[in-house]
């Protein structure tokens, strides 16, 4: 590995660390949402534990980054302006949980799992094993929360279906350029092409199945998907 590649790999782990760090804030907001809704203690404890997990993940990622960059680094302050101003009605909370938890976190849990499988560095494999297991649990928490919420507020079912449909019908944005070498995957950094494959597989597999289990059907299949090749074939031409 050249010094430049080492620096780039370190930067990739720094970005992962920032993602984990931001998750602490995302779960903090989730805890507030749970309190607002009168959620049961099992969900509250799960969210609080998730916050702690994400702090651990952040330190893991920055620790790995230091190995490759040669420099210690950590996250600075996050701009929290407007975070508290986000809509906090039941529907908005549910939509946030669906988007950030059921979908994004389920995908990211699979990223971690695949990254673990492809990594060859022992310390990185240990780190990713921990992250993958925790993220999977966090994703489960989101699905349990949405299930609980829809049971408590059944009038939200249509909105949940629309949210899943909307989420399924917009394209996943990835960098198209693959500037990093394939060897980075040995060190736990998935390339954009790998992420794209994993994300689509998870969407078509686990997330679709869990959505069906949650709602009884797959609403995304019924919404005109306007931004993919298949969807474009459906739009008038």
């Amino acid at each position, binding site marked *: 590995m050249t010094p430049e590649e080492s620096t780039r790999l370190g930067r990739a782990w720094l970005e992962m660390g920032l993602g984990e760090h931001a998750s602490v804030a995302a779960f903090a907001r989730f805890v507030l949402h749970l309190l607002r809704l009168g959620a049961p203690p099992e969900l509250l404890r799960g969210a609080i534990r998730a916050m702690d997990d994400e702090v651990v993940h952040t330190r893991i990622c920055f620790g790995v980054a230091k190995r490759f960059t040669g420099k210690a680094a950590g996250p600075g302050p*996050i701009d929290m302006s407007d975070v508290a101003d986000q809509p906090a009605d039941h529907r908005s909370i549910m939509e946030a949980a669906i988007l950030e938890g059921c979908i994004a976190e389920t995908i990211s849990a699979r990223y971690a799992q695949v990254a673990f499988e492809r990594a060859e560095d022992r310390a990185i494999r240990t780190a990713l094993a921990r992250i993958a297991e925790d993220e999977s649990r966090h994703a489960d928490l989101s699905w349990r929360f949405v299930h609980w919420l829809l049971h408590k507020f059944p009038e939200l079912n249509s909105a949940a279906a629309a949210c899943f449909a909307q989420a399924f019908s917009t394209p996943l944005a990835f960098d198209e350029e693959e500037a990093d070498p394939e060897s980075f995957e040995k060190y736990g950094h998935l390339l954009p092409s790998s992420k794209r494959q994993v994300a689509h597989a998870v969407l078509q597999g686990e997330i679709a199945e869990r959505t069906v289990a949650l709602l009884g059907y797959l609403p995304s299949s*019924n919404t005109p998907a306007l931004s993919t090749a298949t969807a474009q074939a459906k739009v008038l031409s």
Partner: protein
Amino acid sequence: MSKQLTNDSSASNHARLLSSQARETIDKVAGQLSEQSAAGALARGKMFELVGYFPEAVDSYVEALSCDRNNTEASARLALAQLKAEQREKALATATALAARQPAFKFKALVTNEQVSSMTVLGDALVGNGRLEEAKEAYQAARKIDGKDSYAAGRLAELHLANKDFKKALDLRKDFKDNPRFEELNSLMALSDTSDLLLPRFSRESLSLRISAIAVGRPLLVDGMTRFASVVEGDEEWCADSSEQSDAP
């Protein structure tokens, strides 16, 4: 929809139909491609749209409107091209203005025999912007303008299914069952005609998601954008010590 429920001859027939209609459209516009006029720009837009060059199609339709701002067909095609080019908000603005101006305007789809109205285009634009209830109203208005608008019927059925209004969706089936565009939906509904337990298995290639920069963990989304902290160098407290042996360079 599972591909097992379609058969080769059905797909071949559909492809042949699309092919002949695409050829017909190409033949009609080919002679106008070089014209520096609204008609020429409209022709270029259609050609770009046919081959999937949607941003270029948008530019051409805009050019057509700059030559003739009352060109209703250019407006309608612009809205659709904007949707395909993922310019959703612009598409909605274009479609809304068109529907207000000419709600009953009808035109022929480029590669199918569908005759659709401005209200149908508005419905598509509303769906593209996540406004599903309003989209239903637009498609219903389109069907009032033309009871034979099978495209609007199919779209409306899809929206009813999303809302678990199975009966309403099934009631629409007769109005789109002959439209090849909705072959999969029609086949599925044929199976489910006697049951509310619809379990759609549509092509999952249509599933996609946009969350900018899914990295790891749960994103902190504010107004749809992810938020991160910046990196501060020199902070040892955040660097966990990996005491395991490693292959690090």
